[in-house]
């Protein structure tokens, strides 16, 4: 244990500690850049719209018609029409749009308000298919929750009655944070209702089917 040995080991230790600190600081500075990324624009998004538009043009039918499982439902072939429609709209550049076209919510028979605060409201994705909900209302529980609940109440009470409406609204109110998941069913003489919200999600779904 000479002085020389002590100095050498101290120098090595200082260098290694310095390296670790440097890496940590570098990582944090990167993170602070990330935190600034609210200002980030996505230059790629401009490119995406054009490339997808070109790539999707000229599409034919989805081709499920050749499936040997032709005795099962023809979901694929039903898509061909909507597929080519959607492909046409790709050129408009919104990659983040939904590609289905839902029927207007009024077709469900519920008295839908003309203006509302719902996150989204839509009719059936496929009116001829009884598996598809005739009405879907999406509620953002973190934004104007009370207003949306009042509007939902007005919309569903004339069809479902006061008791079930109250139960549904009360159940929705139990979504007090994103970590609360919801999934419950109700039935009336004419309707089947599901209220659900995924863990971590801020959207509550109200779905109604004809019985």
């Amino acid at each position, binding site marked *: 244990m000479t002085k020389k040995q002590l100095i050498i080991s101290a120098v090595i230790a200082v260098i290694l500690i310095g390296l670790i600190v440097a890496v940590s600081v570098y990582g944090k500075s990167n993170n602070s850049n*990330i935190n600034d990324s609210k200002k980030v624009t996505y230059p790629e998004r401009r490119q995406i719209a054009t490339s997808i538009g070109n790539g*999707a043009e000229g599409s034919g039918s989805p081709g*499920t018609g050749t499936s040997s499982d032709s005795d099962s439902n023809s979901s694929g072939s039903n898509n061909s029409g909507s597929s080519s429609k959607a492909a046409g709209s790709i050129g408009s550049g919104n990659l983040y749009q939904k590609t289905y076209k839902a029927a207007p919510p009024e077709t469900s028979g519920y008295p839908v308000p003309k203006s509302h605060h719902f996150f989204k409201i839509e009719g059936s994705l496929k009116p001829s298919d009884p598996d598809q909900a005739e009405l879907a209302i999406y509620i953002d529980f973190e934004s104007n929750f009370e207003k949306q609940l009042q509007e939902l109440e007005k919309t569903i009470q004339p069809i479902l009655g006061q008791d079930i409406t109250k139960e549904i609204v009360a159940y929705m109110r139990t979504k007090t944070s994103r970590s609360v998941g919801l999934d419950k069913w109700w039935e009336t003489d004419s309707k089947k209702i599901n209220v*659900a919200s995924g863990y*971590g999600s801020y959207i509550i779904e109200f779905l109604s089917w004809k019985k």
Partner: protein
Amino acid sequence: MRRCSIVLTVLMLLIFPAVAFAESFQEAITYANRDISARYQYRGDFFVSRNVNRLSLNQNIWKNPINLGGVSVHALVYGNPWGDYRNGQYRYLGYTRGGLGFTNINFPCDSKDLLSKYIEDLDWIEYPWKSALVRQAISNMGEGELHRDPMFDCLLATRDLAYKGLQLEKNENGRALAGPRAGSVPWEKYIHVYQPPTQYLCGIGRMWNKKIIGGKPVAYYKTVVMVPYNVAYPPSTPPKGEVPGFKGELGGGGGFR
């Protein structure tokens, strides 16, 4: 003293890469969350520290990506691999945020249809979260309830990214899974997205097809990879160094190289 300094040096060398890697996993999650918020207008963090069953994100799964035709598929799953074990692969890599099984694309297909048919020739089930057959299949497999994700399911982007992912896959005989008509299928209508794709992170989801066996309909699933946006649409002018959080080679925005 010499022994002391050697031990000290070795310790430092061991700690150093561990510290460096821990940072990059956290960065990956941060970048992915930022990207998802900006790209899909998703409020808050999509990837959270624990899922519905209090399982945490699995760093080992993330750091051992699956190679799919040269594209690294990093999965951000909660908990550990589980389910049947075949050919050295578990059926599930873990769980999704909501507690559904996160299926492993490397697990051998249950159905042999893809040995003789192209992927677009199977009878894919549209809007699977609405299908009683799919719900039953999921329940039979001991998974939870399948719900549509109002943010990520049915997005136009999924069509092209999934098609490009399917083009990378081959069947057990080495033939391409995607045939000549796969490019015109609206894949987004069939896929339930577990992990939304970002600029650098692959998306992962699952779709189901219907087969009639013994006169009864049976649902088979297929795990689908959606290539990252930078693979499908490489930027013509790399944003490297110009935009904070978007340093191309570091994987800013999506979090992966």
